């Protein structure tokens, strides 16, 4: 046994050494400190921001008889021009004249400027060039003063923002209609407005060497599981790339199983959905520059939950949920079942239906499997064309396509009428479950191949493989098929059926929330009890 240990030891040492060499890593420049003289600072910044015509360096002097020289550096377009003029330049150039007479030449320290002169809310001090350039790039104005090696970083962000409009992906009939926009602060503000409590924590993270995208982790202290937050931070810090342009990029870096067609990170465009999920113990990841917000951990059942379900009556919400689940099964198993029924298990069909289908399939050139494949591909192309084309033309395409595909093909006797109905039903039902429709459009093909070769036996095993794959998925430590796979009885209230809100006493156990109890109010007031003065007795 000892020989094995020696072998292992040698191997471990080799692998560590290898790791050392091949990691060249751009050694971070030792953070160069600012120099006291204003000139050198300005020259250094000019050199660093060469060919950046949008960089503005405004030199001026202030203090009694303009004895103190200073320079204000900011990027035009990122900053709020009126704020800079009124709150920074104006007080410095004019008000500083009224310094108390006993001040001798200049200002004792830059802190004093901050305390007395500059009337802007958010101020920070920078020591190094790196911090300074970062501040400029993220929309702050930086004040350099002669004779001081510290710079004053004044937040003056103010760029063009899109107005808060109705989200495009998640249409809602009843319920709030505001959607996130590209600006990170506005998004966090929207969530703040929904959850007005100091427990709503927002942790900043900076990702991407080149793009330095700002990412915020939003969670509710006391509800979200600290281990989950630590895990998110660990995964975000592991991202070592130079460009993060949208939430989608981040999603692929931090998700549990990249190979799986199923999403394990939920994205949403509506603050009320995100607020609802935060209350259940999840954490949201906001990325600067994308109107989508990621929400982890995600369970499979969330594909069938829409934000509107909680705004409508219980019975209707439950029926819509069940409808979505059926739509999912139709879009996944529709074509495969058609092939299996028509080619392998004709005895399942009632006699009259079998005869009419046999009648319609008289003299058709293609076998059922090939026929289904052709129709599925054509509908897939149709759907893609409808989405990509600009709106007016998109509508036209889908109508023309449907007519041509459906009617003409049947009249010409290329395909049977039943197959057009089946494929159309499949396409429509895949629209009903938008979140999972990309996974469905892939797995549908697996089931079609299995159905063509082995009929219902193939489909059964294909479906079982999918279920096993789903059961093995984890999303940030939560089992993907949570209320069903590890069977948690009282989590079932919000899955296929949506129990009335007053019955939702606990948060989903799968997310390991810290505080399980959500509300104690159980049965609403009993309307039949006569109104005796005070409120109906509260159980």
């Amino acid at each position, binding site marked *: 046994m000892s020989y094995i240990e020696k072998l292992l030891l040698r191997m471990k040492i080799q692998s560590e050494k290898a790791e050392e060499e091949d990691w060249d890593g751009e050694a971070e420049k030792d953070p160069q400190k600012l120099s006291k003289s204003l000139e050198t600072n300005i020259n250094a910044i000019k050199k660093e921001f060469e060919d950046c015509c949008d960089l503005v360096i405004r030199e001026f002097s202030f203090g009694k008889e303009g004895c103190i020289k200073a320079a204000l550096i900011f990027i035009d377009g990122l900053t709020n021009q009126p704020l800079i003029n009124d709150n920074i330049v104006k007080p410095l150039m004019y008000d500083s004249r009224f310094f108390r007479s006993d001040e001798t030449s200049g200002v004792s320290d830059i802190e004093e400027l901050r305390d007395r002169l500059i009337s802007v809310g958010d101020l920070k001090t920078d020591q190094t060039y790196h911090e300074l350039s970062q501040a400029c790039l993220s929309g702050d104005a930086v004040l350099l003063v002669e004779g001081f090696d510290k710079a004053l970083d004044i937040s003056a962000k103010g760029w063009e923002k899109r107005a808060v409009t109705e989200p495009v992906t998640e249409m809602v009939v009843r319920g709030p209609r505001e959607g996130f926009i590209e600006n990170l602060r506005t998004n966090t503000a929207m969530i703040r407005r929904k959850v007005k409590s100091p427990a709503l924590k927002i942790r900043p993270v900076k990702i991407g060497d080149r793009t330095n995208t700002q990412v915020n982790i939003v969670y509710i202290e006391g509800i979200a599981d600290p281990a989950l937050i630590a895990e998110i931070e660990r995964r975000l810090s592991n991202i070592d790339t130079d460009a993060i342009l949208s939430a989608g990029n981040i999603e692929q870096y931090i998700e549990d199983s990249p190979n799986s067609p199923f999403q394990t990170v939920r994205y949403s465009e509506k603050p009320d959905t995100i607020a609802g999920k935060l209350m259940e113990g999840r954490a949201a990841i906001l990325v600067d520059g994308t109107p989508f917000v990621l929400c982890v951990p995600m369970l499979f059942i969330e594909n069938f939950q829409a934000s509107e379900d909680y705004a409508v009556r219980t019975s209707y919400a439950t029926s819509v949920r069940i409808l979505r689940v059926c739509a999912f099964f139709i879009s996944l198993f529709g074509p495969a079942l058609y092939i299996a029924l028509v080619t392998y298990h004709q005895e399942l069909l009632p006699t009259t239906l079998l005869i009419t289908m046999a009648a319609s399939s008289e003299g058709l050139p293609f076998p059922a499997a090939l026929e289904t494949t052709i129709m599925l591909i054509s509908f897939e192309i149709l759907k893609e064309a409808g989405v990509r084309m600009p709106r007016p033309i998109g509508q036209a395409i889908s109508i023309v396509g449907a007519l041509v595909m459906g009617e003409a093909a049947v009249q010409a006797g290329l395909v049977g009428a039943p197959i057009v109905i089946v494929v159309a039903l499949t396409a429509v039902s895949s629209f009903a479950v938008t979140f999972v429709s990309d996974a469905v459009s892939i797995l549908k093909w697996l089931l079609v191949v299995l159905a063509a*070769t082995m009929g219902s036996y193939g489909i059964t095993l294909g479906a079982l493989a999918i279920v096993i794959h789903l059961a093995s998925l984890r999303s940030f430590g939560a089992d993907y098929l949570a209320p069903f796979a590890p069977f948690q009885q009282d989590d079932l209230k919000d899955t296929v059926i949506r129990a009335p809100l007053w019955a939702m006493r606990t948060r989903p156990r799968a997310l390991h929330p810290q505080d399980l109890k959500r509300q104690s109010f159980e049965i609403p007031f009993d309307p039949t009890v006569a109104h005796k003065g005070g409120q109906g007795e509260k159980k």
Partner: protein
Amino acid sequence: MKKNASKAPAGKTKQECPGALNPVRRAVAALLCALMILSLSSCWSRRELNTLAIVLATAVDEGKESGELKVTTQIVSPGEIKSGPSSSGSSASKKAYANIDNTDKSVISALDGFTHITNRKMYFSHNRILIFSREVAQKGILEDLDAFTRNYETRMNVYLLISKDKAADILDEEIELEQMPANHIAEMLEAQHSNSETAIITLLDFDIAFLSGSTAPVAPMIEMYEIDGKKKARLEGTAVFKQGKMIGELNVAQTRGLMWATGKAERATITIDTKDGKVDLLIIHAKGSMKPVKAEDGTFRIRLKVYAEGDIESNETGKDMSSVENTEMLQEQVEEFIRAEIESTLKHAKTLSADVFGFGEAIRRDYPKDWEKIKENWDSEFSGLKTDMEIDVKIASSGEMGKPVVQGGAE
């Protein structure tokens, strides 16, 4: 193979890349898919809809030479059926079915023989009725039935029929309402509950009755009759089998007697000729049960209990039959009528010495030990068997009218 795990600065923990883009894994997946697609080529047991001959009825007749069997199958021709039932009943439009027959030594070889004459494969899952001609039934149909029970396509709830003359003609009957004789006969058979004068027997019932050794299996009979130039089929009587061979027949009344005794009767219309004229009664609910009773001296008596409930359907006597005394009188008459029917069936069964009622089976169930003793000479035992019948009829209502409409009845 360059390790393509994402290079992580020393400070951060090394996140083991889950082998997403690992080329080896992709190679494995490709190989497995190839394996699967390869299997796609061979078509195995795929059957396209338009290569199927959907069989809805099968008939077995005697072939020309002795020992040969002619199997006729009624196949749907889907093309014509789309045009709907021909309204004017003119036989000009092409028939929605085709009767194909083949003659061979046994049923199975005949069925396989079809591959020589039709391009389509015979598909028996939707077969609804199975008709044997009387000659074939008399020679014994068990070997032929075995072919249908063993094949995994044919179902066990197929109806069994014995045709008085040639079975193939049954399938050619001209009918107006339906398009397919097979559907017509099958649905007619299912509707027999309303007159309970036919025994509705499926393949499974027949096999069960045959397995029990003592009971004589029965099967409904069907015959062709001619009215104004059209040949039609009619359900008439029941065939009685022993050791798989048909030994006799029961007429309609005797079949109803059998139904009363075995509790299978549901609805029945009974006409009573009272001294003043005819009264028709409609029996709506009927229950029958048989129970063997062991007398002290070891012999068995079968206690038959029949309970029937019905209404007065028509009253030609001009008398008020809804009066209490008259209804009492009617009830006795109906009880007498049912007793007579059961008696006639019993007498006929005893002459054929075929226990169609299943008395032997009842005795075996309740007294297994005694049954062993009397099993061998059950035929003689059955002919000496005494039965006492308790028939209880209740006439619930006399329809919408009480007294009948009689000329001058208002005074």
